[in-house]
């Protein structure tokens, strides 16, 4: 399933971008090789090279380099297509164009050509994200180390054992294959507690700790066990009582009104996650059972 989703995202993305680019090429959407005429006014009468170019109501500073070349200065308010063109040519603040003809008030310009724009953007996004993924993973080093260290103390001091005794009866139904008094119950419940309280920074390392313990119990080290799938389903459906910090940052106190609907909706997704994971687990056990006979 994941193979198909993964390949699907990539194939749909590239084919879709390619189709758009081919369409752009056929209809010459970017007006490659078509001269465009703009009004202009001279700022400095002495040199006559500093001008203001009028592009769809935007006033852009520009400098005429020589008979053939003009450099247009851009900022954030400049027209979008100009910024895009400049970005693709290396410097988003300066756009070079060639002058086709010039009168007292009007300049006819040939802007740089734009080909396969979607595919270029897409390639850049893919490379940027690959780099970002590494940064993201390395950014987790410290926080994972911190919580694994604390968990080690909690295990050695018997704190986890105490906790397991309390949560075991509740969690046994969800994770029937974890042996009695196993510390995995402790990590799982701590991870869930962190999720409920919206403590994302603590939840991930604690979840990783739980996954490691589940992996020790896993008979097939290459394939996710039923326990892992249940744990993942619980995590991805996000059981939480407090709204995530990012939502508060975006919406401010408005979030308070949304608390009840969020809790109701998240309960629905969590209950669904448990049911679906249970159904799949039963089915895979059934399969194992019949293949053994």
């Amino acid at each position: 399933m994941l193979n198909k989703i993964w390949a699907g995202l990539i194939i749909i993305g590239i084919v879709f971008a390619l189709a758009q680019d081919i369409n752009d090429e056929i209809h010459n959407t970017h007006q490659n090789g078509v001269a465009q005429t703009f009004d202009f006014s001279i700022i400095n009468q002495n040199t006559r090279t500093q001008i203001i170019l009028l592009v769809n109501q935007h006033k852009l500073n520009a400098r005429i380099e020589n008979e053939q070349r003009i450099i247009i200065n851009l900022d954030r308010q400049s027209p979008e297509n100009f910024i895009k063109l400049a970005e693709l040519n290396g410097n988003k603040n300066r756009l070079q164009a060639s002058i086709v003809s010039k009168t007292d008030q009007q300049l006819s310009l040939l802007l740089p050509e734009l080909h396969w724009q979607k595919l270029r953007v897409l390639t850049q996004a893919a490379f940027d994200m690959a780099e970002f993924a590494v940064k993201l993973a390395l950014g987790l080093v410290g926080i994972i180390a911190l919580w694994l260290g604390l968990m080690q103390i909690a295990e050695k001091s018997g704190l986890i054992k105490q906790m397991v005794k309390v949560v075991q009866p509740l969690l046994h139904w969800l994770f029937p294959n974890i042996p009695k008094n196993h510390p995995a119950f402790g990590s799982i419940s701590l991870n869930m507690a962190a999720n409920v309280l919206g403590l994302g920074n603590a939840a991930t390392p604690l979840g990783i700790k739980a996954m490691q313990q589940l992996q020790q119990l896993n008979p097939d080290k290459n394939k996710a066990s039923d326990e892992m799938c249940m744990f993942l389903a619980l995590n991805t459906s996000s059981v939480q009582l407090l709204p995530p910090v990012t939502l508060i940052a975006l919406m401010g106190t408005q979030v308070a009104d949304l608390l009840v609907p969020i809790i109701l909706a998240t309960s629905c997704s969590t209950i669904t996650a448990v049911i679906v994971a249970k159904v799949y687990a039963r089915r895979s056990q059934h399969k194992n059972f019949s293949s053994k006979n």
Partner: protein
Amino acid sequence: MQQLSNLIIPLIILFIICYGLIKRVAVYEEFIAGAKDGFGIAINIIPYLVAMLFAIAIFRASGALEFLLVLLSPLANFLGFPAEVISMGIIRPLTGSGSIGVLAELINTHGEESIIVKIAAVMFGATETTLYVLAVYFGAIKINNTSYAVQAGLIADFAGFVAAILVTFWYFS
């Protein structure tokens, strides 16, 4: 409520350390023993995260999502919910930053009071970035065959999506 989460982490740390001291655990040494795995785990995660994030980046940069929305909006109209929230439903399991972007955009165009923004915010709060969680958790223990975890996660996300629409309409009517 919000103050609680500011308070709770320092208190947990305090409690774990004190309990360790009472039980005569060599707290510093044990902390190091546990923490030394942190780097290895993060390194394990890298290939999984690169694979996932780069595929999602390609999908998002292509503009296929916008096209999908145009295709799906008649269905949304037919079922009687705003088509704009579909973008949140699709992007939410894929990327966290992407879904924040979608929400910010919806707030910009429709305002915080609109039902569209409320539904989208409930969706955002009610589900998680499924594919990211999957990559990190399975990456940490180097499992490639995720069995049925994706199906379970995505079906749960879909349930959260439907529930967010129904609950929000019911709650604010």
